[in-house]
């Protein structure tokens, strides 16, 4: 069995999973209007962490989240030769060193925590987080490591904001995933982490079970989602089959839901063709914005909190159905026992990835 637990979230909603959970229960969003943040000094909605400024923001966040995780696990595994740290990120410390966006952070983390191996960076656009959790689980299945610490992190930058502005993909209001009036994404920053392990004893609090999944490419376009959801459908089908789980066993779907017209439409088509349209679903982007390489890890951590607290969290920003295929979008927080959940992600480069978490 592969365990996952000790989840940590550092975001505009708080420095640990519990503070983040409290904010979600109250349906508070981390998104705020930031004056003159845009390329032409436009005011832009962003989910930024207060007080995170200056150089080395990426490194600060990674160290902060790993310190918080250390307190939730048997700390002796950090320095074990049977432990590796995987970092999921798109742009890393781009603002510190354009030509070497990751290695300074990896070395600093290794030294500070006395790790036996240099952390490995996985950079697969917006599916990075879900993909990295799957890699972690599969490294343990193959007995390559006993413990894998997954950290997902991306910080806000002019670079990424201006880029999405150039694509006319940034919403002028807080993003509204799956809503009829959605106009694009809201960018966010944050860092999430979890321990994936073969040993239940590595966790101070009871872990959950990770059912690892598969990635699939759309083979369609590098920056636009497939119209048919082909890659997402293939990824979910394989993830279900690999774990011998039927669609009807899924109690909740944490969708990618970026708030762009085409992404959300693609997801509705994919879920519909898999007969998953009736399953309660949300997007967490209305709370965190799109945190890119961190999104899959932060959102999986939130799913784990939802399971631990037996509660569905409403999809922030959603009011009216806005996709061609129906979805069962969560309108209000609702107590519900969650045994098996599905987490999906899709992104630039045509990537799609999915995983499942099961309550023990």
């Amino acid at each position, binding site marked *: 069995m592969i365990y996952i637990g000790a989840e940590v979230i550092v975001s505009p909603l708080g420095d640990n999973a519990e503070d983040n959970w409290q904010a979600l229960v109250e349906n508070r969003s981390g998104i705020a209007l930031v004056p003159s943040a845009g390329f032409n000094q436009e005011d832009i909605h962003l989910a930024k962490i207060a007080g995170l400024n200056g150089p080395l923001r990426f490194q600060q966040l990674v160290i902060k989240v790993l310190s918080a995780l250390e307190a939730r696990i048997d700390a002796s595994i950090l320095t074990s030769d049977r432990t590796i740290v995987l970092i999921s990120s798109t742009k890393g410390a781009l603002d510190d060193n354009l030509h070497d966006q990751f290695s300074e952070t990896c070395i600093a983390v290794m030294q500070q925590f006395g790790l036996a191996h240099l952390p490995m960076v996985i950079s697969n656009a917006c599916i990075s987080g879900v993909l990295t959790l799957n890699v972690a689980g599969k490294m343990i299945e193959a007995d390559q490591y006993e413990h894998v610490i997954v950290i997902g992190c991306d910080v806000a930058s002019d670079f990424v904001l201006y880029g999405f502005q150039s694509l006319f993909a940034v919403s002028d209001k807080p993003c509204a995933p799956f809503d009829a009036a959605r106009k694009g994404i809201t960018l966010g920053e944050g860092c999430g982490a979890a321990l994936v392990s073969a040993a239940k004893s590595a966790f101070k609090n009871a872990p959950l079970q990770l059912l690892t999944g598969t990635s699939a490419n759309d083979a369609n376009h590098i920056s636009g989602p497939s119209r048919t959801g082909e890659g997402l459908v293939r990824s979910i089908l394989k993830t279900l089959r690999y774990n011998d789980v039927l669609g009807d066993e899924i109690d909740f779907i944490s969708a990618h839901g970026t708030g762009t017209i085409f992404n959300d439409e693609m997801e509705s088509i994919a879920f519909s063709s898999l007969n998953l349209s009736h399953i309660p679903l949300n997007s967490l982007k209305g709370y965190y914005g799109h945190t890119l390489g961190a999104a899959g890890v932060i959102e999986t951590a939130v799913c784990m909190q939802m399971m631990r607290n037996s509660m569905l969290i409403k999809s922030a920003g959603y009011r009216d159905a806005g996709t061609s295929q129906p979805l069962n979008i969560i309108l209000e927080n609702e107590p519900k026992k969650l045994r098996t959940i599905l987490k999906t992600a899709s992104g*630039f480069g045509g990537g799609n990835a999915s995983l499942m978490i099961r309550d023990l």
Partner: protein
Amino acid sequence: MKMITAYCNLRADECLVNGEVVARRDAGSEDSWFKQIYRQLDLGYPKFYKMDVLSQAGYLAMELIKKANPDITAAYADDEIALVFANASSSAETDRRFMQSYETGGSPSPSLFVYTLPNIVLGEIAIANKWYGENMFAVLPKFAPGFYLNYSEILLASDSCALLGGWLEVTAGSTDVFLFMVEERENGTEFNNGNLLHLSQTGLVAAY
């Protein structure tokens, strides 16, 4: 057994397939080195011109491997070839150009921005071949055979039947591209640490 069945090395002045030089850079040409190879291969894929250098390099090396081993495509279903790539500098070269577009060029360029992620090359190869399989891009300090060996063990234990591995380091100052195909075969070049390291250095000038 897992064997390396084909490989391609792109260097600053030479392009080799399975250790044989197939193209040499014409220093007198006005065309870029990658365009020279594209022309020589007569590929007829105009999207090539839109790609950034990482995607151009990955696309060309893939096409060269296919040319040397035409069976590769037909031998597998459309989701059975996994793509596992890595490099040291992510998409830094394109990141720099995108940054220039808004710092000195007037406005951020969307056609550059979409290439400011290292995994885009995987998407380009998937699109060009209509491959729906597993994809992964890692950023590592240097070429590390163990990374490919470990992850291939994971992939080939599930739905993937073959692996296209890649190391793609293309910066203003250097071109170090190594793509290799790993398949189940009875005999050939075994897919192991030593062979991978050795083949990755094909075409390197010994003087340095």
